[in-house]
């Protein structure tokens, strides 16, 4: 994974729990690097170790931490370097989500090592989307829920996300129903 993912986790932990907490997370993960180069690729295992160590160190259930991280990824990490770009990635919440695979393929020019998941979204009805997420990486469904919630914030939508199929439970892919409406 690109370093910006690990860096995003560092920002989340330091922002909410302080620099020292991040130091303890890194120590617990068995790693040494406390900061990461955004555009360098690191082994996926390192990210998993850091996320697991953060959940343990901060006593937050892993799925809950992953969901917070997904939301933070949109509202803070991506916003920081790519905010203006996010503005032109979709005219609306459904428009953004239904074109996300296309966006990933456009990013490949800038980030050739990117190994993105496949996310296909269809509009079931106004205010209701069905999102299918397929990735070779395991256990990241809560992160996807967080991403969707972060995006909803960006587009001033209230949202609820319901997982209706789970790869961990034997389904071919994770699937979610996303109910959304404009914030009052």
């Amino acid at each position: 994974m690109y370093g910006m993912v690990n860096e995003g986790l560092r920002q989340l932990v330091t922002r909410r729990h302080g620099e020292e907490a991040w130091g303890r997370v890194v120590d617990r993960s068995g790693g040494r690097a406390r900061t990461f180069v955004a555009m360098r690729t690191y082994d996926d295992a390192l990210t998993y170790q850091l996320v697991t160590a953060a959940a343990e160190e901060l006593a937050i259930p892993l799925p809950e931490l992953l969901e917070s991280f997904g939301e933070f990824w949109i509202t803070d990490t991506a916003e920081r370097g790519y905010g203006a770009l996010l503005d032109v990635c979709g005219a609306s919440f459904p428009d953004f989500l239904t074109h996300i695979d296309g966006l990933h393929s456009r990013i490949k020019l800038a980030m050739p090592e990117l190994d993105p998941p496949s996310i296909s979204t269809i509009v079931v009805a106004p205010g209701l989307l069905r999102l299918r997420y397929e990735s070779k990486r395991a256990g990241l469904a809560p992160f996807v829920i967080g991403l969707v919630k972060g995006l909803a914030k960006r587009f001033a939508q209230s949202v609820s996300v319901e997982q209706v199929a789970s790869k961990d439970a034997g389904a071919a892919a994770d699937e979610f129903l996303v109910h959304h409406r404009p914030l009052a």
Partner: protein
Amino acid sequence: MTSSLRLDASGLDAAFPFHFVLDDGLAIVATGRVLRRLLPTGIEHTPVDTLFECVRTPAELTLREITADPERCWLLRAKQVPSLVLRGQFVPTADGTVLFVGGPRIDIDTLKELGLTLNDFAAHDAAGDFIFLVNAQQASLADAARLSDELGRLNVELEDRVKARTVELSTANAQLMRTASDLVSTLEPGERAYSC
């Protein structure tokens, strides 16, 4: 190899959302789905040179000029939407019309100004990829600055620690010397010589 390929309006829209078609009198007869949104309404049958002007070369938009070389690159500015500059080429078609295929020259600010998103571009159009590329480079520079600041901060921290440790060591050393000297002063002259 030849082909009798024909594209209907929806095919043209999907492949070239910024295209337009001119009749042999150079009036607009059709526009792509995204270009239609950017230009004023009711432009059908409007002569092309009332809507666009050449940016790079002072060429006249005449049938002779635009059909002289289908591979020539044209830059056309929309007179009523100055931030819209289309880059593309005019291709004569079998039915006597002229098809313009191309897309807007873009950066993020222009996209925002025009109310466009990357989803308005055809899947084959790499313009959006370059927006990501430029943005990624800018983000990388910011990241390098962050890492440099972090390195500077760590360096200062390390220097401060070394200084503090040096002071500690020199204080401890002085203390040790004093203790040794005190000890020596308590010894009898004979013992003192022996101790030295």
